[in-house]
């Protein structure tokens, strides 16, 4: 598996994500936001958490217009894998690669804690290492993680089995308790919780490691 991790000014989970990819056996290249092209033969692009461009205007809005994200979109359009975590999820909704938007948390507070996530589907290369219905412990750290989509979009996501994770105890007001969703071809994942922060025994939990292992297994044989 060859992974690229995009670094925006204000990204702060980029190295954590790179470490998690490497631990799962990936070759990782960091890509600067001003680069216009991804490195050759990249299987998956990781868009990390943080506060890209200070989250000015809206979270992820400026990043979605950056040169590298144009290449990320082209990569996704070719059927490439893209994974956006936290701010990365916000960037993916702003680009339109994933539907909906992330609003301010309903309780208005920034929330940083470990939450229970229910795995809603194991039918993706991200979630194949879990069983549907498993509950895993993964940290969240966000101010704008309140997933919103119109009713029609929600129905489509649920009907097509594209909800990857839901919160067991909704911390932020997200519609239908949604914590993470998949694209139509199931190769783009956006999620607010941070699996890369639960991928090593030193983190205090390793429930996120199975996601990176499953991905690595799927992309090794690809």
């Amino acid at each position: 598996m060859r992974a690229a991790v995009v670094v925006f000014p204000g990204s702060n989970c980029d190295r954590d994500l790179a470490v998690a990819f490497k631990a799962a056996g990936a070759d990782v290249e960091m890509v600067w936001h001003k680069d216009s092209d991804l490195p050759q033969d990249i299987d998956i692009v990781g868009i990390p958490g943080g506060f890209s461009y200070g989250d000015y205007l809206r979270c992820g809005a400026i990043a979605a217009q950056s040169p590298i994200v144009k290449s990320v979109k082209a990569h996704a359009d070719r059927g490439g894998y893209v994974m956006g975590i936290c701010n990365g999820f916000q960037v993916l909704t702003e680009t339109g690669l994933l539907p909906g938007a992330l609003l301010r948390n309903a309780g208005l507070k920034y929330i940083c804690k470990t939450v229970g996530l229910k795995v809603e589907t194991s039918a993706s290369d991200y979630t194949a290492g879990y069983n549907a219905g498993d509950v895993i412990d993964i940290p969240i750290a966000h101010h704008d993680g309140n997933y919103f989509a119109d009713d029609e979009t929600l129905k489509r996501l649920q009907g097509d089995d594209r909800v990857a994770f839901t919160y067991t105890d909704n911390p932020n007001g997200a519609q239908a308790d949604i914590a993470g969703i998949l694209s139509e071809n199931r190769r783009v994942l956006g999620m607010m919780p941070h699996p890369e922060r639960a991928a090593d025994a030193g983190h205090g939990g390793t429930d996120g490691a199975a996601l990176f292992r499953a991905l690595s297994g799927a992309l090794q044989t690809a």
Partner: protein
Amino acid sequence: MKARVHVMLKNGVLDPQGEAVRHALGALGFDGVNGVRQGKVIELDLADGTSEADVTQMCEKLLANTVIESYSVEIG
């Protein structure tokens, strides 16, 4: 020329900040504030001849996220 863009969360999209402001106004003794919606105003200083259609494009592409926000443009 100047343009002023008003961006608001769409009706039906929860505005927790507006709600917090409404609560704060109530706490200050302002009764009868039934609702508060908070948005933003973006002022653009534009080269003469920029069309309203250009400003609309700016709104669609960047200034508003039309999944959750509506916008209006005031020229001049």
